[in-house]
Every structure is written in C-alpha cells, then in structure tokens.
C-alpha cells in the first residue's frame, strides 16, 4: 500500500479514538509542514488533542479499541512542558504521537491553537491542521533539528502572510522569544534581508 493509504488508515483509527472521547483535535507535525512549508520524508503522525493527561488511561483504551498499540506515555519532553503519549499502528507501521492539553502555559497555548486550526483537503478528505503561526510556535518550542529546519521552510513560503504579533505574544508567554528571535534573525541573514524583527512596528 502507498504511504498515502497507510496515513489515512492510521489517521482514521486515531481520529475515531479521539472522537470516542469527544476530544477536540488537530493534526500537527508532518502534514501541516508539507501544507505550509516543504514536505520532507517522515512517517509519523502527530495530533494535538484537548484531553488532559489525566485522561491518558481513557485514551489508551480508546486507542487499543481501534487496534493501536501503546508504546509510551504520558511522557514529558524535558524542559518543554509538552506531554504526549506514543502509539503504534501495527497494520500500517505508522507511529502516532498525541499531545495533551495540560494545565501548564503550553497547555493554554495548545487550547488557543486548537481554536485557530485550519481545515485542509486532500485525497477527497478534510482534516483540521494547525495554523502556520501555531506550527512555528510548536516547532520552536520543541526545538529539534528537523523542527527548526521545518520552520525555515514555513518562513520561506509564509513569511509575509504570518500574524507575527500573535507568534511573538505566544512565544513570549511560553518562554521562547529569545529562540524565536535567533531563528528569525538567521532566516533574515540567510535571505539577505534587513535584520528587523517582523513583529516590530
């Protein structure tokens, strides 16, 4: 089966599990990166859900009922206050991360990001995905090599259309404004543009 078919199958199982718990959800990770930036070869599917990690047992049961296998979780990415559970779809060999909406400030961010999600359509299906602004905040917050590379590609395609005041405000709240400034500064240098932060009046 092509990866597209595998993705839709694994996504359907995850969405059924989240819907059975009446959770609000959206896709984060590779799909929005491909939509707002540039595609790269990755086979994981990442979801943000309105569930608190206190609901982790319920999510485990709902995922199991859909044929997903629990791998780990809830686990916290060190120092980032991002908490997730990891599942594996043995039929498609796709890994699924589900990020919880916690009581931390990062949970407040995710709550807001869920309200701003965008609907996209492909292969005759419609999925809610994270907005480009919130994708940038997630990626800088997670601060992984590939994540920052993804931010670069989103900036290449979306720089002039982004709501920078929003990105700046949430970056400040979750404590990554310095990192965001570093990344934007280097992006502007790379593009040969004047070093002026886009959120400055």
């Amino acid at each position, binding site marked *: 089966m092509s990866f*597209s078919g595998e993705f839709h199958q694994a996504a359907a199982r995850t969405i059924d599990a989240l819907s059975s718990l009446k959770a609000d959800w959206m896709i984060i990770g590779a799909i929005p990166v491909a939509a707002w930036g540039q595609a790269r*070869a990755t086979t994981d599917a990442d979801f943000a859900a309105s569930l608190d990690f206190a609901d982790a047992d319920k999510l485990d049961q709902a995922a199991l009922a859909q044929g997903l296998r629990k791998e780990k979780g809830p686990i916290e990415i060190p120092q980032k206050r991002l908490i997730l559970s990891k599942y594996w779809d043995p039929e498609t060999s796709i890994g699924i991360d589900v990020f919880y909406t916690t009581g931390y400030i990062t949970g407040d961010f995710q709550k807001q990001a869920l309200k701003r999600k965008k609907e*996209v359509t*492909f292969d005759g299906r419609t999925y809610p995905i994270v907005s480009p602004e919130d994708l940038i905040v997630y990626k800088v917050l997670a*601060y992984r090599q590939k994540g920052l590379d993804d931010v670069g590609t989103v900036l290449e395609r979306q720089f002039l259309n982004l709501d920078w005041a929003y990105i700046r405000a949430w970056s400040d709240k979750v404590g990554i404004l310095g990192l965001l400034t570093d990344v934007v500064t280097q992006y502007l240098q790379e593009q040969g543009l004047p070093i002026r932060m886009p959120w400055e009046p």
Partner: protein
Amino acid sequence: MIQTAKTPEAPIDVQDRMEAFFGIVDLCREVALSAMVSQGMTRGQAEAEWRRLRHDAFLKRERPPFSRRFPNAGLWTSR
C-alpha cells in the same frame, strides 16, 4: 448595525503539497527496500526490516538543541 453570520472558511486544497509529501515517503521507502534487496534480502525480509527501522526511529528521542539550518540559535537552557 447590521450583523452578519460568520461564514465558515472553506477547506484549503493542499492536494499538490500532500502528493509531494506522500511521493517523497514512497520514494524513500522504495530506495531503502531496493538497497536491502540488492544486499541479499528477499522483498519480504526487506519490508520487515523497514518496519523495524520505522518503529525504532519513532521511539528514538532526538536530543536538543541542534540545527543545521540555524546553528547559532541559543541553547534551550540559556534562553
């Protein structure tokens, strides 16, 4: 004041972007499988190995901070 109902935004068509994404993954998988078959594996063994590698990669945690594209980005712990 006239109030109008908010019109829901139509879904954004990202078919081209997703075809590129899924195409890259399929292509990478086929290259990896071909390489394993050329090293002596059967197609079935290569597919099993591909699944195992995907699973290992999924569970591996990337340790921050590093970026090829933004090498000067400040350390997470010193922001």
